[in-house]
C-alpha cells in the first residue's frame, strides 16, 4: 500500500465543530478530516460523500475538496472506479488541483493502468514542481512503463528536492542502470548507502550496476552484503548464482540456486540455472526435471525449451529433443522490446513504499 494514499490532506484547518452538528459541505468536510485523523476512515468517507452530495451543482469549494478526499479514501480501500470518478469530477471543476492529479495518478497505478498514471502524475509535478513526492511517483510510473530515461529525470528531481530520501535514490539508480548509466548509478547508490547502510536493495542495485560495468568482484561483495542484511533476498542469491555460473564455479552456483529453491520452490530462474549446470556435468536426466519445473512456471521460456532439447539429445531421446526445438522455434523471434538495448531491464525495482512525503 502506498504510504501517501492514506496520509491526510489538510485543505482546511482542523475542524472547530463536532461532526454530529455538520450541516454544510464545509462542515462535512471538516468532520471527515477529523475522522480521518482518528483513523475512522469509513466515517470520514461518509462525511466526504455528504459534502459532495449536498452540492449537486458543484458550486461550493468544500464539495470540490470533498471529491478529492473521497477519491483518496476510495483509492485507499481499493475501490478504484469510485476513486477515479471522484477525482476526475474534481479535476473537471478545477484542473489545477495538483494533489487531485497526484491521487488520480496513484490510483491508476494501483489499478494497473500505468499508461494513464503517467500523464496525471506529470501534470501534478508540473503544477507543483517543488513537491518531491510528485516527481518520485512520476518516476515510478515511468519506470512501470519502461520509459527509463524520463524516469531518471523525474527521480533526479525528487532527489534534488529531498536529498535525504533513500527510496528516491535507489529508484533513480534503478532507472540509470536500465539506461546504461551504471557509473552514475554507482555514485547515486554510494550516497544512498551513506544515508542508510542497511537497505538491502541499495546494496543489490550497486552490485548490479557494478556487474554491468564488468566489475564482478565488487558486484559479488555487494550482493553478499545485500544477502547478509536480507538472507532471503532472491535477487541477490540469483545474481550470485549467475555470476558463479559464468565463472564456471558450478559448486558455488549450485549452492546459490539450491538455497533459492529452498526459499521459493518454484523459482524458474533457479530451476533453469541448476539445469544448465547439471547438463554441463552430464547429468541430463536430473536437468530434465528442473527444466520441466521451469517451464511449468514459465511456459514461454525460450531458454528452458532450448536447454530441454539439449538434455533430451544427451539422453538419446531425439524425438523429444526435436519436439522441444520445435516449441522453442514456435516461441518466435527476439524478446527485446522496442528499444534496441540488448541488456535486460531489471525485472524488479526497489520496494514501492517509502519515497518522499507529498506534504
Amino acid at each position, binding site marked *: 500500500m502506498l504510504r501517501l494514499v492514506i496520509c491526510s490532506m489538510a485543505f482546511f484547518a482542523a475542524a472547530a465543530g463536532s461532526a454530529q452538528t455538520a450541516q454544510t459541505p464545509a462542515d462535512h468536510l471538516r468532520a471527515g478530516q477529523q475522522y480521518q485523523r482518528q483513523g475512522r476512515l469509513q466515517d470520514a468517507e461518509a462525511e466526504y460523500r455528504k459534502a459532495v452530495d449536498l452540492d449537486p451543482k458543484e458550486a461550493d469549494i468544500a464539495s470540490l475538496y470533498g471529491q478529492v478526499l473521497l477519491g483518496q479514501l476510495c483509492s485507499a480501500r481499493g475501490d478504484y472506479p469510485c476513486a477515479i470518478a471522484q477525482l476526475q469530477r474534481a479535476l473537471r471543476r478545477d484542473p489545477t488541483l495538483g494533489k487531485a492529479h497526484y491521487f488520480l495518478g496513484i490510483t491508476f497505478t494501483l489499478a494497473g493502468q500505468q499508461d494513464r498514471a503517467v500523464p496525471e502524475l506529470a501534470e501534478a509535478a508540473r503544477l507543483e514542481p517543488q513537491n518531491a513526492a510528485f516527481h518520485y511517483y512520476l518516476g515510478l510510473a515511468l519506470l512501470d512503463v519502461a*520509459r*527509463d530515461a524520463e524516469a531518471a529525470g523525474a527521480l533526479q528531481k525528487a532527489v534534488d528536492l529531498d536529498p535525504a530520501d533513500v527510496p528516491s535514490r535507489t529508484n533513480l539508480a534503478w532507472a540509470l542502470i536500465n539506461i546504461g548509466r551504471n557509473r552514475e548509478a554507482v555514485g547515486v547508490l554510494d550516497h544512498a548507502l551513506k544515508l542508510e547502510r542497511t537497505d538491502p536493495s541499495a546494496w543489490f542495485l550497486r552490485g548490479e550496476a557494478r556487474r554491468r560495468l564488468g566489475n*564482478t568482484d565488487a558486484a559479488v561483495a555487494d550482493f553478499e552484503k545485500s544477502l547478509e542484511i536480507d538472507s532471503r533476498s532472491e535477487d541477490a542469491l540469483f545474481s550470485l548464482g549467475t555470476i558463479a555460473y559464468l565463472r564456471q564455479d558450478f559448486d558455488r552456483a549450485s549452492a546459490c540456486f539450491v538455497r533459492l529453491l529452498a526459499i521459493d520452490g518454484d523459482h524458474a530462474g533457479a530451476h533453469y540455472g541448476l539445469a544448465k549446470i547439471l547438463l554441463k556435468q552430464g547429468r541430463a536426466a536430473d536437468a530434465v526435471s528442473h527444466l520441466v519445473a521451469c517451464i511449468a512456471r514459465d511456459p514461454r521460456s525460450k531458454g528452458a525449451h532450448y536447454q530441454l532439447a539439449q538434455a533430451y539429445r544427451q539422453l538419446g531421446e531425439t524425438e523429444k529433443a526435436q519436439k522441444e526445438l520445435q516449441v522453442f522455434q514456435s516461441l518466435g523471434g527476439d524478446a527485446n522490446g522496442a528499444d*534496441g538495448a540488448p541488456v535486460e531491464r531489471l525485472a524488479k525495482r526497489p520496494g514501492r513504499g517509502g519515497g518522499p512525503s507529498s506534504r
Partner: protein
Amino acid sequence: MLPPVLIIALGASPANRPSANVDITFADVTAAAGLHTRIVYGGTGQNKYILETTGTGVAFLDYDNDGWPDIFLVNGSTLDGFPKGQEPSNHLFRNRHDGTFEDVTRRAGLVQSGWGQGAAVADYDNDGFDDLFVTYWGQNRLYRNRGDGTFEDVTVRAGLAGERRWGTSAAFADYDNDGFVDLYVANYIDFDPRTAPLPGAKIPGVNCSYRGFAVMCGPRGLKGERDRLYHNTGKGTFTDVTVEAGEIDKDGYRGLGVAWGDVNNDGYPDVVVANDAQPNLLYVNQRNGRFRESALEAGIAVDEDGRARAGMGVDLADYDNDGWLDLAIANFYGEPHSLYANQKNVTFLDTTWASGIGRATMHHLGWGTRFMDYDNDGWKDLLLVNGHVYPEVDRQKLDETYAEPTVLLRNGGNGTFADVTASVGDALAGPRPGRGLAVADYDNDGDLDVLIASVNAYPCLLENRGGNANHWLTVRLVGRKSNRDGIGARVTVTAGGVSRVEEVRSGASYLSHSDFRAHFGLGGTTSNATVEVRWPGGQVDRLETPVDRAIVVREGG
C-alpha cells in the same frame, strides 16, 4: 618422395628464441606507409538510417603476384552525397616492399564510388591473378584482374548484374570441388530510404530508440534480405543457385558475416553466416551440390539461453589445435562475443564464458573478427575490432562510447584467452568506431600485421613488432586441379612434435579479406617442419622445410 616446392627464404633463423610471452607491440604505421585515404561512411554525430552504420571492409591481396600483400580499401558515402568528381572511391595500394604503399587506384581502373561495403578476393577464373568482388548497398561489382596491374569490371559479363541489394560480407569457396571458386554473398536488409522509418519513430516491433533516446531504426523490425549463393560455371560466369543448393537463407535473415570452412573435415567446405539479431546459420555441405542448414542442432544458431545475438563478424580456425575448425562470432554491446569449440560431430560447445572471451567482450560491440597467432607461439589468438553503431551514445552520459577499443585476446593454450591488449602498445586498442579487419604479414618479416577500417576515419595499419621473435612458417598455395588460390585446402604443419592446422580461406572476419598465405607460429621450434597440404580435390602433398620461411606449394609438385 616429397614433391618439389619453391622455397623463398625471408629471414635468418636464430635458435633458442622464446616460445611465448615475447615483447610485442603493434605500431601505427598508417601515415608512414602512405595510406592517406579517409574512409567516408554515413553521418558524423548522428545517423538517420541503419544504412549509415555498417561501415566498410579492407582486404590484403597480392594483385601483382610479387609476394608482397597489397591493400584494398572499400569506401562508402553519405546521405548528402558529393559533387560529381569528388565522390569517395575505393582504393588499391601497391606494396612497395619497403613498408610503404603506392595508391594505384586510377591506374588499376578501380575508381568507384557508392555505398561500398565489403571485399572478397579470389582467382575466380584461375588465370593466376587474384580478382576482386566488392559488395554495395546497390550493385555489387566483380573486377577481373587482367594480370597487367589493371582490373576490368566484369559484373555484367559474369552474370552478377541487375540485382541491387544490400550486400555485406562475401566469400569465395569451391563448394563442389570442381576447381572453380563459387561465391556466397550475405545480404543485410531490404532497405529503401524512401520508405525507411526515421529515428524515434513509434512503430510496433521496430527499434527506433536506444536506452530511451531516438536513434536510427533497426535492425529489429526491418525486413532482412536473402543471401545469395552463386555457382561458378568455369566459363567466367556465375549462376544463382540459392534455391537449388538447399534453400539458402530461406527466411531472409539479416546477414553480416560469412566464413567458409570445412567444419566436419569431410573435404567439402561448409559455410557459417552471422546474422544480426537473428539466428546464425550453418550450411553443411552435402557433397552433392546441396547444403543442409544445421545451426540449431550444431548449437551455434542462438546462445545457450536460446537468444539470437546480433552477429556481425565471424571467423573459423582451429584455436585448440585439435585439427577441427572452431568458431568465433562478434556480437552487440552487452552480449558477449561468442566462441564455439568444434566437437567433431557437427556440433559445437559454447565456450564463450569458459574461455574468458565472455568477460572480456561483454562491453564491446564487435565487428572484425580474426584468429591470428600474433606472437607465433603456435596457438591462435583472437583479434576483435569493436565500435558502436550509435554515434549518439557519446551525448547521453552512458557507460558506452561510440569509439571502442580493439581487443586482443591471447590464447593460453589451455582453452582460455586473456586480454593482452594493454601489453602491445596503445595503437592497437584505439579506441575507434571500428568495422573491417584483415590480417597479413605485409612486410614479410614473419609476423602478422593488422589492417582496420573505421567509420569516418583513416584506415589503421598496425605493424607487428616482435612477433617474429618466435619461429614461423608461411605457406602460399598454388592450385592446379584445384582452384588456383587453394581456397579450402587444409595445411597441416608439424614441427617439434606438434601439429597445427590452417585452412586457406577467402573472406571471413567482417566485410574483409586477409592474406591467403597460411601463417604458422612455431614457438621455439627450430627443427625442420613437415608440411601436408590436402587440396580441395583430394590431392595430398607433403614436404619438409626449414622454419622461418615463406614457401610456395604447388599442387602435385
